[in-house]
């Protein structure tokens, strides 16, 4: 798990590019979509679930699952709630806004 300087620079480059991209992605959003967009983005920030998986596994693998392991497990549960709940609640909101509209367009 040792870091090389090249890898660090690569990560920082990716960080900067993704920030630029984030700024560009969203330009004009109608008020109706503010909350769904916020909640969808929030669900995506639950990607930390990947970190939680790694952290709890590393901690449990290390033999003596102390406080670190259980912190990792808590993180896992919270992150999963964030993702799953977030995507579902976003979906519910969108069903009502966009779902109806789509139906109208078809008919």
């Amino acid at each position: 798990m040792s870091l090389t300087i090249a890898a660090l620079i690569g990560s920082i480059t990716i960080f900067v590019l993704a920030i630029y991209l984030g700024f560009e992605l969203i330009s004009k959003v109608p008020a109706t979509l503010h909350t769904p967009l916020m909640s969808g983005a929030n669900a995506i920030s639950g990607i930390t679930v990947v970190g939680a998986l790694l952290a709890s596994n590393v901690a449990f693998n290390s033999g003596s699952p102390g406080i670190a392991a259980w912190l990792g497990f808590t993180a896992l549960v919270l992150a999963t709630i964030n993702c799953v709940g977030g995507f579902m609640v976003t979906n519910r909101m969108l069903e009502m806004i966009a779902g109806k509209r789509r139906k109208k367009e078809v008919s």
Partner: protein
Amino acid sequence: MVDPIIFDIGYLLSAALFITGIKKLGSPRTAPYGNQLGSAGMLLAVITTLVKMQVGNGIIGWELLVGGLVLGSVIGAWLAVKVEMTGMPELVALFNGFGGAASALVALSEVLARIKTGEVPTDMLNLWAIWIAIGLSGLVGWITLTGSLVAMFKLKGGFTIPLTKKWVRFPTWGPPWLNFVKVGLLIASFAFVVMTVREPENALWVWALVGSSCLLGVLFVLPIGGADMPVVVSLLNSLSGVAAAFTGFVINNNVLIIAGSMVGAAGLVLTFIMCKAMNRQLIDVLFKSFGGSDKETVTRTKVGSDPEEVAMMCDGISTCIIIPGYGMAVSQCQHAVKEFADLMEERDVEVKYAIHPVAGRMPGHMNVLLAEANVPYEQLIEMDEINSEFAECDLAVVIGANDTTNPAARSGEGPLGGMPILDVDKARSIVIIKRSLSVGYAGVDNDLFFMDKTMMLFGDGKAMMSALNTAIKEY
């Protein structure tokens, strides 16, 4: 040699799904698809991680990992399904707090495990890079957690004290000197981050950081009025993305870095967009308190009308504008409102809905509710467009809206000062349905109620609307 590439491709693909997902979430037609893309990306990332761990050192606690995932999914799904439309903003705030907490916990777990097993990096590069990433991830993560929790309670308006079942209004408190405390705490937190790097074996600094950043989150949101909460939640959402990105540096994983920093940036943009829609400056929102203060005592009075009287009013008009507000959301009377509109249309009245951008408690709140009640999209008219039509309108029916119609906003002073409002007072006659003469979110008295052309229908939105509909049918 081929295996590791597959995992990286998996992560790259899931990052691409996130990017496309966020992009599509920004436009009405593609938003549901965008959300699906996002969740597909998440699933892919989780599966990739599980397989990679199994292929790597092997997973020891399968039951635990899967258990955690299942437990989280069940809780998340349950919360998402059972929440009512009015409770959504609170739930989003709660989820957001969980996301921040998870990032902070991963960082904490990592640093404690490393200290315990003595895996503290010895070379400068690794020490600085990893320890700073851990510190920042914790700092931002804990702020997100406690800030989001406070925001959630503020959105709810308060909480019941356990056992006593007493409802307590959540306080909004922020004297000017608090801003100095906040700055001081922020500096202290950064100092703690530096100290963790200088004394990497000493867990004390880590815990100090946890404490200071948790406190910071609370103090950050405490002075902000409930009316500004959506903006604050959006900002906290941006922070939770940043926390995830820092966690990505901790565990050296690109998909966290990409998704996290993208959400961070996009969330910030959204925050500004929302500020603009609410006619507020971000800096004012954060450092000047607004609304949610103690309600003024109502001194004036007005005699209420009854549904029959209003039904009579409704006869013979040709244009009607419906102005829904937070009260419609609370009493869930959108279906009754739609029925009222149908009754009016049967009588050849032209019906439109005036949608204020911040009516209700979340942006787009009214659109969501009315869409649920099958109101045709074309009848929902945005503020700017409909304001010129009030002068030609025979009857304006205000259902549980208050601040968004308050002429006091035009004066430019007070908590509402400068907020654009619906020009309901220009209508030929006005009916207002609410339970009392009491104030709305911003806590400002409303002259509209006391105008001669205004009829007040006091009562719960749903009950009153049904009574009105019955009265119209019988008239």
